[in-house]
């Protein structure tokens, strides 16, 4: 009977303190997308982010990086999610990340998708809906 709501964790890691974009996205996902959004705030460790993803049983994790540490952060977050036994949860990204690094991270399997600056909330919502109906993420036990 009941359709699952989509539940998303949005995060910023370490000392990267630019969170205007992610707040706007959080609000957009909730208001336009009707999703449950948890934003863990600034200055989180990757361990805290992964632990929260596990405990909140989210369908997706969105990590935004603006300070150039993306090549380090995404693979480590993915490792931590795998270690917590929630490696199936897709990670998407955003922020200031060069195109070739985006391709590289996707090829590594560290992220499912990375959105460039200026991506509309609407297209992110559309992508999320498509990814989750494609059977990734939120498996039902």
């Amino acid at each position, binding site marked *: *009977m009941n359709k*699952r709501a989509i539940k998303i964790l949005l995060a910023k890691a370490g000392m990267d303190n630019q969170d205007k974009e992610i707040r706007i996205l959080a609000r957009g996902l909730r208001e336009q997308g009707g999703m449950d959004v*948890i*934003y863990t705030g600034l200055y989180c460790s990757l361990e805290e982010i992964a*632990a*929260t993803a*596990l*405990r909140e049983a989210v369908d997706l994790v969105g990590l935004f990086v603006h300070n150039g540490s993306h090549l380090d952060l995404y693979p480590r977050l993915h490792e931590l999610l795998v270690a917590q036994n929630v490696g199936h949860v897709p990670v998407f990204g955003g922020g200031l990340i060069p195109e070739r690094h985006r391709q590289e991270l996707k090829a590594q399997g560290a992220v499912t998708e990375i959105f460039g600056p200026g991506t509309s909330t609407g297209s992110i919502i559309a992508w999320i809906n498509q990814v989750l109906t494609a059977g990734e993420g939120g498996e039902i*036990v």
Partner: protein
Amino acid sequence: MKELGQKVLAGNVRSASRLIRNLEDQIPGTHVAMQQIFTKTGNAHVIGITGAPGAGKSTLTDELVYSWRQRNKTVGVLAVDPTSPFTGGALLGDRIRMLRHAEDKGVFLRSLATRGSMGGISKAVGEAIHVMDAMGKDTIIVETVGVGQQEVEIINHAHTVIVVLVPGMGDEIQALKAGLMEIADIFIINKADRDGAASLYKEVSNMVHMSVTEGGWEIPVLLVESVQEPKKFAESVSVVCDKIEDHYRFLMDNNLLSERLRRKTAAEFNEALWGAILQPVLNDLDAGGEMEKMVDQLLKKEIDPYTLAAEVAVRYKNKV
């Protein structure tokens, strides 16, 4: 589904998270896992914390968790948002302060999205408490925002109810008189360094003296120092912790726990009946498109809801 309950009993975090998620989303069949764990619940001390947004509940909860961890107790925290689980920025204050416990194996911190039908919130909270209880958590804190009927229902799941106030919220006391007064076991005046703390303390103390409590428990009114003074803050929260434990002992010593439990159990059974009897009827009416037709009839004033409901009741009485 079959083994989910067993895994929760073994303390598996991932299974507990998934089960609570199923409760949030009201997935049919979730009761199977709940059936598995139910008989193993009832060992945790459940504490409800309520108060207006901005009263500092999260910071307080965070410090309480720390106090209990110092006393070697495991803790579950259930943060309930009747509005939404959005916890970013200034929108709903920041629960993110509690993240320092995120990785602690002795703490299970979880927010609860509250969608769904009337009474659904209270039901989900009660069930999520059972999940944490079955995991073996000693103490479970339920934190909820605001003041209203919904809050009172949620708080009904707790053994010990704490109402958090801060100086400078004039309407707060009025709201309390309207409902929360009856359910508070402990009052906390938070941010006690602010102007108006003394007069608020006086006002609440006066109210408390006029009230009659179960078994004669004297409701304490406790002052909690500003978080800007970490040492004082920690000390005053430790006192709160002591009082909470005093209250639990008081309940046990005076056999009040079993009375509360009885009420709670009756309320839960009520909710279960609601789900078992009314939900299938509603689903049936929805699926057949009959619900829409009935609403149309009501809109046109062709019939009144009482007669219509009685007709539906007669029709389903022997079916369910």
